[in-house]
């Protein structure tokens, strides 16, 4: 396959390239206007060259963020506690009336699809609403590592 595009490795070149791209689009348009009167010759339209706007590559963070962590990376019980906090935060977003329980409709409105999908399995009392403990019990029953 022939190479018909060039790579760009700095911002200035990228801007030049963008302008070239616009010019190219204009040129192709001119062909079509002509083509309305007479069939255009068979030619594959071309996109402008691809660009690379920065040579910074992953992973990278700005210098001001390069500080040691304030707390150790959680594992074991600490990690399980953080997981539970994350799950609880999602549950609480759905519990808009702060009742401590979530209905199927509340779960759906909050985008908690997993709760909607498994609602009947979680709501074993057929109460129409489930507590976070109900959710945890269900997840533990499926094999989740939760305290």
């Amino acid at each position, binding site marked *: 396959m022939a190479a018909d595009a060039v790579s760009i490795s700095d911002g200035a070149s990228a801007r030049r390239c963008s302008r070239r791209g616009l010019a190219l689009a204009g040129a192709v348009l001119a062909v079509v206007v002509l083509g309305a009167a007479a069939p255009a010759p068979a*030619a*594959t339209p071309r996109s402008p060259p691809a*660009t690379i706007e920065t040579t910074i*590559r*992953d992973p990278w*963070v700005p210098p001001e963020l390069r500080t040691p962590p304030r707390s150790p990376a959680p594992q*074991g019980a600490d990690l399980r506690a953080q*997981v539970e906090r994350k799950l609880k935060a999602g549950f609480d977003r759905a519990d808009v009336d702060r009742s401590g329980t979530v209905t199927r409709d509340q779960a759906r409105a909050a985008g908690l699809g997993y709760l909607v999908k498994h609602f009947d399995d979680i709501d074993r009392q057929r109460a129409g609403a489930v507590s976070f403990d109900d959710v945890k019990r269900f997840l533990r029953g499926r094999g989740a590592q939760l305290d």
Partner: protein
Amino acid sequence: MFWMGVAVPSIAPARSLTTRLGSCLAVALLLAGCGGGGSGGSAAPPAPTFTDAVLYSSAATASLPGAAEISAVTHHQLTLNGATLHYTATAGHLTARGLTSNAPEATFFYVAYTLDGANAATRPVTFFYNGGPGSSSVWLHLGSYGPKRLVTGDPATTAPTPFPLVDNAESLIDVSDLVFVDAVGTGLSEAIAPNVNLNFWGVDADAAVFRDFVIRYVAANNRMTSPKFLFGESYGTTRSAVLADLLESAGVELAGVILQSSVLDYNVACGVIAPIVSCAGYLPSYGAVGAWYNLDNPNPATAALPVFIAQMRTLAGNQYDPAVTAFLTTGAAPAAGLLSQLANTTGMPVAGWQTHFNLDPGFYHANLIPGTLIGLYDARVSAPIGSPLAIEGDPSSTFLNASFASAITTYLNADLQYTNPSSYVLVSNAIQAWTFTHDGRPLPDTIPDLAAALAQNPQLKVLSVNGYHDLVTPFFQTERDLARLGPLANVQLRFYLGGHMTYLDDGSRALAKADLAQFYHGATAAP
């Protein structure tokens, strides 16, 4: 490749004179049936080329007033292990909408490869993306397990350029449908008003809008019951951990997550935040790189590398890491015996270890061999300092850029019959404007996200793919990060010769393809 059909574009809401005129161009081309190119041969019908006339921008403040879900559809075939596979390529855009608001957020450019005649209900589908943040998916798309790949000759830098694009004998298309998707503000993906690209340039917002793309792709293509996989690389693994949690929470169950060269916790990545945290996660990688350049003493043979690496893990964990911790906290000088042991096992002379005891990859790659710069992405690649390949700071990256940049445009135009007046943005400036805050920390630690995904879906399988010679996301650090999850049968790790993009190495790509096929088999088997 032969042309079978093309999606008829609807006209996207106009944002400029160029766009409006361009839409007319697309229709004119289709009606005229002009076009051509590709490799169909003289007997093939004329190949109308689909033109999406929307002008996409990667600027932080850019947004489109709206977007149409239009795509170019072409049909192809690939011979894999002696069997001819027919597949469809779909290149175009889908609109991600807010999970609860249903408001348009962004238009995602993607290229999907789907096996013809397969049962979509049971066939796996995998979403691929690179990292950055701010990178398009071009590296995975044209370098890894798609139906075509660029011949890079990695780790040599003697391959002809631009690299030829060839049928990929290690494509995963026999195992899974493959969807390569570009992050917002990269490739040809852009925010939709009132959002601007910058709104999606953060750990949480990026993962959320990717979730909404996955949900849209699944709905638009009736893939609700298909086993779903994520395949992210580098920052793409950070994204995958957060995304897996968000998808599981949204009720989209994943079958598997493949982590290609991971950075799961930025807070302990000495190569990212500087040697103010222990670089012990790098030590086994230095051992492998020293061995590659025959600088270790004794130097292990390639076949003995796994045994040597096991010894390096022990050295790193039991001796080097405690000594570095003491050095960082109290300034305690390391024992002379440890310094000579480090020199013998990494190739970096004792003098280097004396001045840089907490050895960061920046110093290692510039000083291991006097006058030579070795790669960070793939430390097996090297170039003389001051040479064109070394001028951007990483010969293993510089060697790839021009060929990948030229190939994506040609491939989209000629093979996938997709043209557009915008420049495809391989790597955007998003990384410099990224919001790294996540879950109460200024830098993301995504192990809790992965743990939350596993808690919601204990059937979820995780495969960590690692390169021994990657000085960007070192494998031992990844092992340590994943070990925080505790002993889990559904988390596997694999190690290959090669750098960050292990798939560029011909031998490693073949080995990994076999491992991936086995992983997919295990992840889709009935429990």
